[in-house]
């Protein structure tokens, strides 16, 4: 038995040797592979693996192959802290992620104290970049920007009575508060402001209650599974009030859940998806993604993770180093109008993405998301 064991160990070293000998440049990805946002995390992983392979096929980065090291944050702050601690000890050049604001927040200080660049992709909460963290960036826009565009859209359509519905998550409540505050300064009245419980199936109670306040429009700041259920049950009630959704609704599954008939006419805000961008980078990315995964990318947030990876690679190339200070400095000051998969990218001193990012989409009769000009 002992002999067998020692042989096994020796053999395993033989196999491990080449892996150890090969020097790779590691880039971390912190994403929710389990838990209720698992679909987002899986998309992020697929996109980053695709982009890393592309970099490696083009000769790698600083003469090394890029290796993606994944930490699963489970969509949960405690798990995220563990994942961040583990990634911080793996000698990564930077970390991409993650999706949820509260999850990113749990990991921010861990990366900051380890002096590791973190580029979040879906965390839109305002306060994340108000802490003055030098190594923190995000490719997604902020909630105050989203609130501004939401209210602008509501006012442009001439709605006077607005119902606001959120789901008590950090993100959705922040956006709801932001919109409510801005509507107070406009010639509009917020007739309803409350939350639903995400993850349930039956929203008839809530819809009946909102209907009783007779709003001209409902602004829902939560996520697409609930939005799909709301639209479906609203149609079954025979109530045709326009719905506007926040940027967590940009997912084709929304139409599947609601059904084409119920989803038709639903507006939502979102950064533009690659399908709507004429740039060479966006189109090439789409083709490569389709070729490899036989689908179009479902989530815009996963595409934003791809952009996070691309700006990090760009910064490493330009500075010819993996030194966090140099990279941070480059991203803050040198990177200007980088052509991303989601439009042009530049960062300000806080690490926020600069520029006019949000667009309005509308669902047509076929269930397609059509960019509104």
């Amino acid at each position, binding site marked *: 038995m002992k002999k067998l064991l020692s042989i096994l160990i020796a053999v395993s070293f033989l196999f491990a040797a080449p892996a150890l000998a090969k020097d790779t440049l590691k880039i971390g990805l912190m994403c929710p592979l*389990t*838990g*209720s946002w*698992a*679909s987002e*995390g*899986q998309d992020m992983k697929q996109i980053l693996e695709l982009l890393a392979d592309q970099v490696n096929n083009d000769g790698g980065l600083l003469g090394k192959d890029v290796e993606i090291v994944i930490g699963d944050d489970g969509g949960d702050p405690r798990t995220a802290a563990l994942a961040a601690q583990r990634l911080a000890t793996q000698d990564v050049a930077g970390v991409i992620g993650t999706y949820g604001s509260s999850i990113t927040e749990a990991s921010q200080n861990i990366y900051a104290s380890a002096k590791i660049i973190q580029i979040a992709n879906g965390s839109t909460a305002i306060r994340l970049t108000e802490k003055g963290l030098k190594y923190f960036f995000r490719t997604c826009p902020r909630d105050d920007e989203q609130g501004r565009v939401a209210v602008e859209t509501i006012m442009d359509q001439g709605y006077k009575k607005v119902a606001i519905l959120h789901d*008590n998550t950090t993100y959705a409540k922040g956006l709801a508060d932001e919109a409510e505050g801005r509507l107070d300064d406009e010639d509009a009245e917020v007739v309803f402001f*409350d*939350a*639903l*419980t995400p*993850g*349930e*199936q*039956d929203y*008839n*109670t*809530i819809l*009946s*209650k909102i209907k*009783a306040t007779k709003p001209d429009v409902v602004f829902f700041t939560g996520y697409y*599974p609930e939005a*799909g*259920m709301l639209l*479906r049950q609203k149609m*079954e*009630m*025979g109530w045709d009030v326009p719905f506007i959704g926040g940027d967590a609704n940009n997912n084709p*599954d929304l139409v*599947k*859940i609601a*059904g084409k008939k119920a989803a038709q006419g639903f507006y939502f805000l979102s950064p533009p998806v690659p399908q709507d961008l004429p740039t060479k980078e966006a189109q090439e990315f789409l083709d490569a993604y389709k070729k490899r995964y036989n689908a179009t990318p*479902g989530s815009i947030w996963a595409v934003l993770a791809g952009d996070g990876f691309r700006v990090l690679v760009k910064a490493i190339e330009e500075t010819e180093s993996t030194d966090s200070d140099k990279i941070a400095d480059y991203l803050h000051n040198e990177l200007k109008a980088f052509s991303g998969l989601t439009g042009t990218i530049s960062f300000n001193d806080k690490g926020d993405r600069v520029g006019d990012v949000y667009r309005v989409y509308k669902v047509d009769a076929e269930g397609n998301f059509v960019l509104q000009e």
Partner: protein
Amino acid sequence: MELFFTQLTNGLAVGGIYALIALGYTMVYGVLKLINFAHGDLFTIGAYLGLTLLTSLSLTDHLGPVAGVLLLSVMAMGLVGVIGILLDRAAYKPLRTSPRLSAVVSALGASIVFSNTVMLVYGPNPKVYPHGILTSQAIHIFGLSIPVMRVIILASCIILMVALYTFIQKTKIGTAIRAAAIDQDAARLMGINVDRVIMLVFFIGPALGGAAGVMVGLYYGQINFTMGWIYGLKAFTAAILGGIGNIPGAMVGGLLLGVIEALGAAYISMAWKDAIAFGVLILILIVRPTGLLGERVAEKI
């Protein structure tokens, strides 16, 4: 008044589903004094298996919607029941003589295994039942419009519960289940095969949970791999509310919890809906520690 009755029908439909799931908690607890925390995930598995059977066998095309859905539900119930028996064999049976906490930990582990298995098999995205299998019509009475599906759900839940109650009260096997719940050793001395009783309980409870899963899929359309958690929690609350271990209690508790939630959300606050439901639970437990219909059972010394 219109709002009140609309919400009442909402609450009864949701409550019926809570009650069906609560029966599984209560039956297992009655016989084994164990809270089967994996029960909510068995409900999820029922919903997913229902979807698989529906799309792969296209039952509704061959048999028409009503017969197709009935057959589908029976098949899903049978499969989930078998999974329930396997769960008992794998996770609980080896721990029969261990301290009670071991089985609770094992149940939590089984729950994690189940929900992640569903995620790996079916993918993390929400799945959707085909639209328009059953009618989406509404009945109009007294100025209310009540979807037919809501009535069907409540009726199906009540039929299943009455059938179970009759089975437990009137048949020989039902008597054996009740006897095993009171005192396993005495039941063994009377010639009852307690192991078989336990197996049966682990078949019936999950089968009812699976039926609830199929109903949720058919009525609401969207299913996801995490939904067992929230439904399981609510159904567990309903079982406690009615008196854990008591079958009519689970039914009453489920319907009551659904109605309390709907009315609380309508008249007090939506965001506080769950808090109101749990608040009512606490109040009832202060007055009646064993739940609404639970009996005072003297602990053996």
